[in-house]
């Protein structure tokens, strides 16, 4: 570009163009697809990742929601349901922009979604200050229903503590008295590890070491020999997505599977990652609030319907979407579709109770997080290399997150 003398005329011209474009742009963007405003349709804003690393989860959750909504002919409280989906791209700032759009422009009646914990923390203040009734269908960071809870935010998924803590005593009794911890080095990984540590040591167990590979990691080669050298009888592990796949596979590659029992948070070996993990995951123990093989009528129907509709195997994320949709429908039915009275709606949601594929579903009245049984599972070959989580048992009582 040739050197330009910034004359006054140029300056003014530049300012004009700048100001004009800057104002037209956002106006254009405000014309992004918005659902029909006002009137009967029930508008539900959905913010999930549809691209990048967590796209698979965003996809599953959406499918689960659609499955349930279709089963009730897409009606809730006598109103047709409209889903307005936005891609959060696993980026807190993008999620904020999209959520603002849903609240201020589309004027959604309800908000749902969010996979990653940092993203939900970014949204929490906005949702709370705008009094947007929200049903979080994945992000499991403990604080969302503890220190940062809000009367407008419900969680239909889990807390990292809920999923991890029951495993402690169980591993001590059934697997090993000493364990090495290997978890992804970020918020959720540490929460999960801490919850296990707490209950495992309380039951009498010893932690022989802790490793926290960077997040994300593709190569665990530097850490696996360390595990081998420590010779623990078992590991407690948390990874999810591609990290989980690579960790489990490489664990087997280094021959560690022969002498070391894998235990971990259910996400390590859930249906979304089992196909890629293959036989390396066989035999792994984990806890989660659901399993594909759960033997109850609702689950059998859920799994079968999911397979028929999407030609895919359901996973815990789809289940969370499915239950979220049901909460919405039941609550709206209870208030007969009236979303204008927020207090009534909040009460209705709090009061929702039903038998979900995961077992009895009920919200904790203090934290507004779901109280649920946690299942002890083991990865087993269901024939032909098809891996599934078999259910070995469940917690005596539904696990209630302490909320503090």
């Amino acid at each position, binding site marked *: *570009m040739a*050197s*330009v003398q*910034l*004359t006054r*005329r*140029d*300056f*003014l*011209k*530049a*300012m*004009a*163009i*700048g*100001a*004009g*474009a*800057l*104002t037209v*742009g*956002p*106006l*254009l*963007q*405000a014309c*992004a*697809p918005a659902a029909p405003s006002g009137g009967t349709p029930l508008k539900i804003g959905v913010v999930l990742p*549809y*691209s990048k690393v967590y796209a698979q989860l965003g996809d599953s959750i959406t499918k689960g929601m659609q499955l349930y909504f279709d089963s009730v002919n897409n009606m809730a409280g006598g109103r047709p349901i409209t889903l307005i989906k*936005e*891609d959060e*791209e696993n*980026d*807190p*700032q*993008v999620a*904020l*922009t*999209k959520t*603002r*759009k849903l609240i*201020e*422009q589309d004027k959604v009646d309800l908000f749902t979604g969010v996979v990653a*914990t*940092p993203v939900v*923390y*970014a949204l*929490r*203040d*906005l949702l709370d200050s705008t009094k947007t009734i929200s049903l979080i269908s994945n992000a499991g*960071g403990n604080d969302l229903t503890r220190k*940062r809870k809000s009367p407008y935010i419900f969680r239909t998924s889990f807390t990292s503590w809920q999923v991890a803590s029951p495993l402690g005593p169980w591993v001590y009794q059934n697997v090993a008295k000493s364990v090495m911890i290997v978890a992804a*080095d*970020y*918020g959720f990984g540490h929460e999960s590890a801490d919850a296990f540590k707490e209950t495992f040591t309380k039951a009498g167990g010893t932690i022989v070491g802790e490793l926290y590979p960077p*997040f994300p990691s593709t190569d665990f080669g530097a850490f696996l020999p360390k595990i081998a050298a420590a010779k623990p009888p078992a590991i407690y592990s948390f990874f999810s997505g591609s990290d989980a796949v690579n960790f489990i596979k490489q664990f087997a590659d280094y021959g560690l599977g022969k002498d070391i029992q894998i235990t971990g948070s259910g996400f390590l070996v859930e249906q979304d990652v089992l196909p890629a993990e293959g036989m390396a995951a066989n035999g792994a123990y984990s806890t989660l609030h659901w399993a594909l093989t759960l033997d109850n009528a609702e689950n059998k129907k859920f799994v079968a319907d999911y397979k028929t509709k999407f030609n895919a195997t359901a996973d815990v994320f789809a289940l969370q979407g499915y239950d979220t949709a049901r909460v919405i429908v039941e609550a709206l039915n209870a208030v007969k579709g009236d979303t204008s009275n927020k207090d009534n709606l909040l009460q209705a949601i709090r009061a929702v109770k039903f038998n979900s594929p995961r077992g009895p579903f009920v919200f904790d009245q203090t934290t507004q997080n779901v109280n649920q049984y946690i299942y002890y599972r083991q990865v087993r070959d269901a024939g032909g290399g098809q891996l599934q989580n078999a259910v070995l048992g469940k917690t005596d009582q539904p696990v209630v997150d302490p909320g503090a």
Partner: protein
Amino acid sequence: MRGVVVLALILLVVFPFLPFSYALAVLTDVLIFGLFAMSLDLLLGYTGLVSFGHAAFFGIGAYVAGIVGIHVGPQIYLTLPAALASAALAALVIGYFSIRTTGVYFLMLTLAFSQMVYAAAFKAPFTGASNGLAGIPRPTLGGGFGFADSTAFYYLVLALVLLSYWIMARLVAAPFGKSLRGIKENESRMRAVGYNVQRYKLAAFVIAGAFAGLAGALRAQFNFFVAPDTLYWTTSGIVLVMVIIGGAGTLVGAALGAGLVQVLQNLISSYTERWPLLLGAIFILFVLYAPKGMMGMVDQLNNKALHVSTLARSNVPTRDDDGRLGG
């Protein structure tokens, strides 16, 4: 011409009173990124320093504004100056080392430094680590007046961005700016003539860093939140794209580019899942057909208009106000 400017400025000023509350939020974001991009243009378009680590200062400004706002006080005379100063200081340190290299190596060195800052923010407990820092307050002015209201905050951002633009525009028009351009065009010649090139480069780097820090602070306060991704290299990449698409070396081009990229990203992703494909295609189209960016396109349109209008008038070549030959 003056009429258009006044109209545009009026539009910017009265925007909050139009019934587009979401668009106001977008415009606020666009202004903030516009400032961020303009600060990079100072480095890129005027000094010829292609930095791939500008997000470092954006992020440092954001985190400092957040941490000061939460732990010390939300007063505007605390948070913003702290953010500016920290970003400038970081730019001084990083710049001092980075300007020892040039070209691709400078690019990579700035990348390295910003990734180090990212790594630190990702792990440090006082930044909220990987979960990010939430609950950042809007600035207050004392006497109970604060910028919690979105309209008030918009005006704050508008004022600061316009002020920053004015400062940067004066800088580039002044001898300082001319020296920078001289360095961009031919560094060794400037050196031969006696300029302390390194000092000029460092100055540009620090000023650019400071303004980026201001933009970051505003963003943190806008969103009440900052996450480590603000420091990640993809943020440096996207602001670089904004400057290039807008037209490097024009300042306003950077702001335009910021507007376009932000709007495109959000707009397209609302319509289709295939937004990376479309966005990537648009970038490529710009490189192929609008190499001077949006400002280049504007210039072309302007020249055509000038050409047409003067052709219509007479055959005698005349000079217009800027001393250019028309007709």
